[in-house]
């Protein structure tokens, strides 16, 4: 009981949270600032403004979240404020931790997709893709995936990038007070999800991309649906430009806010639009091509200043690049199988099950026992809308991964928040969180 009272009084959970300055010696403070700002003690000391940092009666530690609507879920930030200026900031996570990596060790490689697809719930197809690619690499069949499956994976992955970035447009607008933008962003995203529903049966958490290919072929009339999307979205993006990009209030809210330099971003491991906003053109689709990204033409969008406006503009233009890629995918889409005809990983066709007992047994074995994956370990990374999503799988030769780890881009990117916020205004904190676009399902896994 006393513990609870103490927790309520202090307003934080002791160890994980930010400590008030009065409880720290100088050395501990340096260490704390270092760990909060992700720099060594020596660098923290070099900041120079530490001794001049105010005494405790001028500062205040407040909690932002985990129920704050602008924290994109259950992100909690502890902010040390002096007036309206943020001095220290520490993201506290784990409120959505559901043990998905542990769960991944108990699901077969066949079932694993249902698990990983729920991590980054705004780009589920990218999660499934990286898991499938890691599994295929372990099986040694990564070069035998049928062409149609590869191009279908690209199509879905790019459309997913569009839907994810459209949602970013909506939430970013909402966080900054452009409430009508929220409606528009969700509206366009819904159009893309409607296509996903037609193809996979579900709006989200599809479990459609599986080891060996994809679950089903594209439905009749898919090309018209995609063309309809590609026709509808570009004029809407022009509307976004009018509504936000050129608008003085919007620019004032975002330009120069949440600046991060290139060296900092690289040292902190940031990827995706956060890294590209600093001017470093690093996109795994171009730099370490997977699927057939080396056969399509697109530009890697980079920023200049590393601020929140750059990250907004990058995402807006990445939607345009994705549209460009999807046009090329439509031209390339070949016929043929949509999954590998390797009986080890692919269940027999439904029609065979009715007439052949062996096929029925085969089907039953694959869905109950799964397929065995040779011993080994592999790390595969692809470019998700949020950055590098990686999947590390260690297999012991059984049908379930011995260890399944997902390198979540949001988990790493939110570690940049303290750096971006230091010295900024508390009112800009929302703009900074929004510009990183974290998905807490992926941060906490």
């Amino acid at each position, binding site marked *: 009981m006393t513990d609870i009272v103490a927790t309520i009084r202090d307003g934080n959970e002791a160890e994980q949270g930010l400590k008030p300055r009065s409880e720290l010696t100088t050395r501990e403070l340096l260490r704390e600032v270092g760990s909060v700002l992700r720099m060594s003690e020596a660098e923290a000391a070099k900041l120079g403004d530490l001794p001049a940092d105010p005494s405790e009666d001028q500062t205040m530690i407040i909690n932002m979240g985990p129920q704050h609507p602008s924290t994109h879920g259950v992100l909690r930030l502890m902010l040390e404020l002096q007036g309206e200026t943020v001095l220290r900031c520490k993201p506290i996570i784990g409120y959505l931790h559901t043990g998905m990596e*542990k769960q991944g060790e108990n699901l077969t490689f066949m079932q694993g997709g249902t698990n990983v697809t729920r991590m980054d719930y705004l780009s589920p197809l990218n999660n499934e893709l990286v898991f499938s690619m890691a599994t295929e690499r372990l099986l040694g069949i990564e070069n035998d995936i049928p062409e149609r499956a590869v191009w279908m994976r690209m199509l879905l992955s790019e459309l997913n990038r569009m839907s994810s970035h459209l949602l970013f447009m909506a939430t970013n607008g909402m966080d900054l007070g452009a409430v009508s933008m929220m409606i528009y962003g969700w509206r366009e995203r819904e159009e893309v999800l409607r296509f996903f529903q037609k193809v996979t049966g579900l709006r989200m958490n599809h479990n459609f991309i599986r080891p060996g290919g994809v679950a089903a072929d594209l439905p009749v009339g898919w090309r018209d649906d995609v063309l309809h999307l590609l026709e509808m979205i570009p004029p809407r993006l022009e509307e976004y430009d009018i509504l936000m990009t050129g608008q003085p209030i919007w620019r004032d809210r975002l330009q120069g806010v949440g600046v991060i330099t290139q060296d900092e971003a*690289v040292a902190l*491991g940031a990827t995706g639009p956060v890294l590209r906003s600093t001017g470093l053109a690093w996109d795994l689709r171009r730099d370490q091509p997977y699927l057939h990204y080396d056969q399509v033409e697109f530009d890697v969008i980079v920023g200049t200043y590393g601020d929140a406006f750059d990250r907004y503009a990058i995402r807006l233009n990445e939607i345009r690049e994705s549209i460009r890629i999807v046009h090329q995918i439509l031209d390339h889409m070949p016929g043929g199988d949509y999954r590998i005809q390797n009986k080890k990983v692919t269940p027999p066709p439904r029609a065979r099950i009715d007439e052949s007992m062996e096929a029925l047994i085969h089907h039953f074995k694959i869905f109950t026992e799964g397929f065995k994956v040779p011993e080994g370990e592999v790390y595969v990374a692809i470019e998700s809308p949020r950055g590098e999503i990686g999947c590390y799988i260690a297999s012991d030769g059984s049908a379930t991964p011995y260890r399944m780890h997902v390198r979540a881009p949001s988990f790493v990117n939110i570690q940049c928040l303290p750096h971006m916020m230091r010295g900024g205004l508390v009112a800009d904190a929302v703009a900074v969180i929004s510009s990183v676009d974290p998905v807490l399902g992926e941060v906490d896994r």
Partner: protein
Amino acid sequence: MSDTPVSEAVAPELPPSMYGVPLTDSRGQRVLHPTRAQYVATVRALLDDTFTMCADLTAVDFLTHPGRPLPDGISPERFEIVVNLLSIERRERIRVRVQVPVDDARIATLFDMYPGSEAMEREVFDMFGIEFTDHPDLTRILMPEDWEGHPLRKDYDQGRIPVQFSTDFPSKEGAK
């Protein structure tokens, strides 16, 4: 034959290595296997060799799978730290795997070289109970602070949600 460079002729005799650390190939990906003592020096050498980004840092608990293949001279331990480094300049990746025994589950932090590894090391500490010496803020990150045990260890039970209609009904006396 005479124009074959000496190094190539000799190469098959020696196991491949880099910075004096055994180098293996896992499905076409390069993996370095330093000892704990060589760990920091190896990573430092890689950092100087353009591997400027620590893409990922995680661990594996090999409690129930001790007999995995490792290069000569590296004895398997229960834990393994896996670090994925990325060279943006050369567009290359390399992986570092370090064995960590359970009775002395500690290893040096990479924080000074890669500040971004701070949160990942906290996650490994939280999930596996491996200590990172000189880490600036070694606290649990995903689990609550008062949590007991380390969930991703293999001897940590997954737990289950009680199901109402299962075969092993609690007796009426036992149920309250």
